[in-house]
Structure formats: C-alpha cells, structure tokens
C-alpha cells in the first residue's frame, strides 16, 4: 500500500467518524491523517530526487577527440601552405623553362 492509498483510507475513515463523539483515538486518527497528507505532498516531488541517479552520456571523450580534430585542421593548414609554395615554385620553373600554360598569368 502506498502512502497516498493509506492517506485516502484514513481520510475516508476520519470522515466516517465525524459524527462520533470526540475522544483521544478520534483525535489521534485525525492527526495521523493530516500528517500523512503532508507526506503525500512531499512524496509528489520524489521523482525529481530520482534524477540524481540518472546517468548522462559521457561527453569527456568528445572533448578529447575534438582536440585531435583541431590538430588535424592545423596539420592540413600547414600542408596547404606548403603545397601552395610548391605550386608557386613550379609555376616559376615552368615559366623559366618557357612552357606556356593556358590560363596562367605568369
């Protein structure tokens, strides 16, 4: 039986005893019913407390892999710079050799 079910049963019983003469047991029952109602209210937030156990995807691995990609970008930029220099040298060499290349502004 859940706290909520127990609380409902107690509330129902308290209502039934409304017409009965006041005594200590009736008072204690009413008190218990109220206390349980407070517990029910607090228990409605329990699902949020369970979030603590929720595990998230590990993104630390992505961070380290991104560093690798950054390195690859830098490597490619260096490689591109080198190739452009080689092309420039090759163009000059071809011009010196008297080779006419279509479209080239030598």
């Amino acid at each position, binding site marked *: 039986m859940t706290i909520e079910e127990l609380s409902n049963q107690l509330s129902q019983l308290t209502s039934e005893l409304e017409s009965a003469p006041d005594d200590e047991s009736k008072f204690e029952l009413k008190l218990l019913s109220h206390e349980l109602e407070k517990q029910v209210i*607090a228990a409605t*937030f329990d699902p949020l*407390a369970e*979030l603590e156990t929720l595990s998230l995807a590990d993104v630390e691995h992505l961070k380290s892999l991104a560093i690798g990609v950054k390195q690859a*970008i830098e490597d490619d930029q260096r490689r591109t710079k080198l190739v452009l220099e080689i092309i420039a040298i090759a163009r000059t060499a071809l011009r010196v050799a008297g*080779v006419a290349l*279509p479209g080239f502004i030598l």
Partner: protein
Amino acid sequence: MPMPRNPIAYSRLFPLIAASMVCAGCATPVAVRTLSAELVKTQRVYTVSLHAYFGSVEKFAEAQVKVAEIRIDEITAEINRDFAQRANSALAGAATPVERQKIIDQLIRAVGNNVNTDQPLKHKIEESVASLKQKDAELEAAYQAILAASEKLDEYIQLKKTNELVIDQLVQSVSINGQKITSIVEAITRIATELSLTISKARS
C-alpha cells in the same frame, strides 16, 4: 626513343592532370558540407530551446514548491487548531492551576513539534527541485560539449583541404568551372587517345 619535350604536349598534359584531379580528387561533397553546417546551426538553435525549456520547467517546479509549502502550512495550522481545541476542552475540566499549566505546556510542546516536523519535509522538497536544476545544468553542459564537438568537426569539413586547394588552383589555371566538367571529360578522352597514338608512333 625518348619523347620530345614539346611545350604543346605539356600544355595539353596540364589540363589533363587538372581535369583528372577534378574527377578523381577527394573533395568534400557539397551535400556533406551543407548537412554539416545545417547540423551545427540546428544544434545551436536547439541549445537555446533547451535552455528556455529547462528554465520553464524549473519555474514550474519552483511554483509547485510554493504550492506544496502553502498546503503543508495550512495542514499544520489545522493540526494546531485541533491541539488548541483539545487543550481548551481539557482546560475546562482542569481543577487546579498545576493541571492547567500542564495542559498549556503540553499544547506548546505539541504545536512546537508539529511545526518542527514540517522543516524536514520542506527541505526534502527543496532538495528535489535543486536536484532537477542540477540535472538540467548537467544536461545543458553535456549538450554544449556535443555542440562544441560538432562545431569542431564542421570546421574540419568546411576547411579547404590540400587536395581541394590544389584542384582549385589547377582548375583556375585552365579556366574551367563546374559546368565545363562534361566538356573537360570529353577533352580528356580525346587527349588520352591522342597521347596513346603519339606514344605508339614513338615506339614504332
């Protein structure tokens, strides 16, 4: 017999190489670049949506905490009224001041205990909402890391790679563009045939 170093042959060979590279080069397809850029754009927008969503949920949770606390206070007040009512009934039957004092002391103790029991409950509720906020923050941080990784990957995808740059240079040199690819391929076939014939003649 070695082939003569003919400038005309070079000038034909150069566009051949260029066009071959256009066809065979490993340039990142436009579709890949576009998808990557759109993915990053969508993820950036999603980050904003996620932040707003978490904000709304947290505000709702805070409002629920207030409602819960108000209701707990109401129940506590109701219980206190019951204690007071019971004490009043008892006081009516009390014969001596000592008995009266005893009833009053009991009432004070009961009310005090009643109020004190609320604090752990309220604390538990507040902790639950704090847990929600904490998890939201973790989720947002994780998504930021995912976005950062996507951005880095996109940076690489959008980067003009060495081979693409070389192709661009060569393509520029021979003044071709995407629309001319078909005619270039035809030219390649023609030049390749011509080269084949030249080589055959040179060998014979």
